[in-house]
């Protein structure tokens, strides 16, 4: 069985690592060999963070080679661009419709306006989701990670009860219900947008 490669990217504090851990745990429970490698810098907040989750019969490298990622989850648009070279030409990119302006260090260029169009031009299947707003409506914008994870779950062959068990095991009790609902909302959002088989009309910019 070939290895499935997932890349999750975001800004420090958005829950990139937790989402990766949940996916890795679910994949392990579903019977796969798993590696989850996370990449982040100093301090607690604000910097670029990304994580690779790889699962299959046997996984070696903690980081997927460039051009081999099947699914990229991006909690922020600029972060989607930053790691897009890891995505394979036929890969899928799930992007949160959310921007976080970086602080400027000797780079005064404007925030790229056409990020999603650019990704579509590379041939990726791009799906935009309003994960932060959905999470905010459910009670806390920080659950955007669970919304995106729910959307990803629609593409993967990991049974629903495995996801449920994983959330229960890993998410703190006081946040469990919020994350459950966010996860479910992500699944629904994707199904409504056309699921894993068709492209959502309004939000896809894939050619």
């Amino acid at each position: 069985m070939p290895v499935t490669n997932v890349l999750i990217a975001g800004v420090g504090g958005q829950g990139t690592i937790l989402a990766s851990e949940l996916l890795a745990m679910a994949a392990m429970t579903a019977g796969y060999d798993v590696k989850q490698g996370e990449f982040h810098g100093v301090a607690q907040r604000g910097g670029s963070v990304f994580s690779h989750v790889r699962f299959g019969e046997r996984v070696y490298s903690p980081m997927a080679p460039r051009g081999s990622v099947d699914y990229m989850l991006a909690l922020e648009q600029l972060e989607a661009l930053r790691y897009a070279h890891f995505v394979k030409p036929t890969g899928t990119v799930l992007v949160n419709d959310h921007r976080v302006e970086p602080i400027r260090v000797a780079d005064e260029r404007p925030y790229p306006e056409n990020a999603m169009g650019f990704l579509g031009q590379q041939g990726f299947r791009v799906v935009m989701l309003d994960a932060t707003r959905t999470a905010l409506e459910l009670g806390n914008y920080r659950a955007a990670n669970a919304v995106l994870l729910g959307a990803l779950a629609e593409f993967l062959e990991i049974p629903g009860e495995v996801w449920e068990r994983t959330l229960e095991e890993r998410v703190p009790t006081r946040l469990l219900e919020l994350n459950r609902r966010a996860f479910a909302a992500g699944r629904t959002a994707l199904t409504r947008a056309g699921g894993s088989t068709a492209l959502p009309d309004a939000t896809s910019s894939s050619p």
Partner: protein
Amino acid sequence: MRLMSGNEAMALGAWEAGVAFAAGYPGTPSTEVLERLAEYEEVDAHWATNEKVAFEEAMGAALGGARSMVTMKHVGLNVAADPFMVFPYAGTNAGFVVLVADDPGMYSSQNEQDSRYFAKVAKVPILEPADAAEARRFTAAAFELSERFRTPVMLRSTTRLAHTRSRVEPGERREADRQPFSRQVSQFAIPVYARFRRVELEDKLARLREFTEEFQGNVVDEGSDPIGIVTHGIPYQYVKEVCPNATVFKLGMLYPLPRRRLEEFCRRFDTVFVVEESEGFVEQELASFGIRNVIGKARFTNVGELSADLVKAGLTGAPVRPDFSTDIAILPRPPVLCAGCPHRGVFNALKKLGVLVTGDIGCYTLGCLPPYEAIHTTFCMGASIANATGFHRAGEERVVAVIGDSTFLHSGLPGLVSAVYNRVPTTMVLLDNGTTGMTGHQEHPGTGHTLKGDTAPAVNYEALIRAIGVQHVEVVDPWDLESTERAIRAGLEHSGPAAIIARRHCRLLPVEKAEQRTPYTVVLDECIVCEECMESGCPALVWEDDGPRIHDWECVGCSLCAQLCPVDAIVAAEVA
């Protein structure tokens, strides 16, 4: 079966091996090893003030007969180098394992440093695992090796091993018998005895050279492709990713190396690739054995972290796929101080005062970035105060040393004592945020709690600093910009050494997060678009076309931007 990081697996392995005592100082990527160990009831684990102290505590416990472990990041070993170099002469009693985590790529460090050289200088054996399951097994093997040869053993980790999760099958704990300490004075290193121990150390190394030939962690994966590769640790995973069918000699024991087996392996191939991360340690050892048919660092860089892509490029010459930054503006995103971070108030004042600022190790190194650019040097733990003294000696009059609470207790204090003793008018700002922030909120001797969660006496900084002879000591709330600036100015004007303690909890501590303060908002009608508020550098504040906005979900109500506003256009949201 459980999903575990390398760090968690090393803690599990140590627990299973019957470790009784462990000490360390937080340092990414090593921190979670001790945190996880502390969760086991049978293990007495604590944070020490610094790595040297931690090492000496664990060393004492091992001499006293308890299996012990000390944990640190690579630069921590620099601090602990003194005991690390001397202890092998005496040798240990119970098992003693030194976990050192290197950080190739400097994800959270100020330098790259290959700790394998340290072990070679100290004549200490090294084990290096390649994944979490092996991290568990090798940790147990390290304790056995340590007791068998009565030597400290380095368990070498890297960021990628420490922070990668994979499957681990946990086992049971095996309690180790305590070995009574024998008061044999000749075991210890005063010169008259050390000269004998020096010779014995060489004998021990000779026996370790025999052991490594048999060590089960040095393995050859026979493959069908006619390619021979020598590798170790995480690079092994990249090699297998790229060349699953190559014949691979995977080294688990990195020092001493199994010379005879390597000679035999290298004879089988015209050319052998040596794929190792950081320096060409193995390559140099092979050269010293007279093995010439190897290609190593010429193809695999010693700078930064390797990857499957870089290993493939080194083996085949295939180019590494570039990112899209030449096609679209992928702006850099450095980390920032959090909304409400108490450090921000201090940097605002320092920037205004225009003084030279010597920095230290912690989140506050971010003060070197815009909009503050108010940290001008950062080197190593505790350096800020002594560096400031040096700048004074070089003729610089207005110098401020900025240091965090945990770092001050780690190694800042001796610098302050020296400043007092030598009558240098060094001004220190102690950023007392009540935690070890950057590594993820570890307790320390100033917080009032231990690693195990018990209450503990908390250092009284004011009393301590006065007791060593600093006469000007003032405590301020860094959320109060005016008072903070005034206090630092007063410190600079004082003729002798001065200490300003900027005291407010890290915003991410649970006690702070629980506090509900009213977020602030911008009254656009009154805003004069002067951009003064943006000088706060707060991530909750964003600039739109017509002026600033505050993300109410990010704002914690510190009021810093409101204090900066010259026309009171930023107000608490409820009165807006």
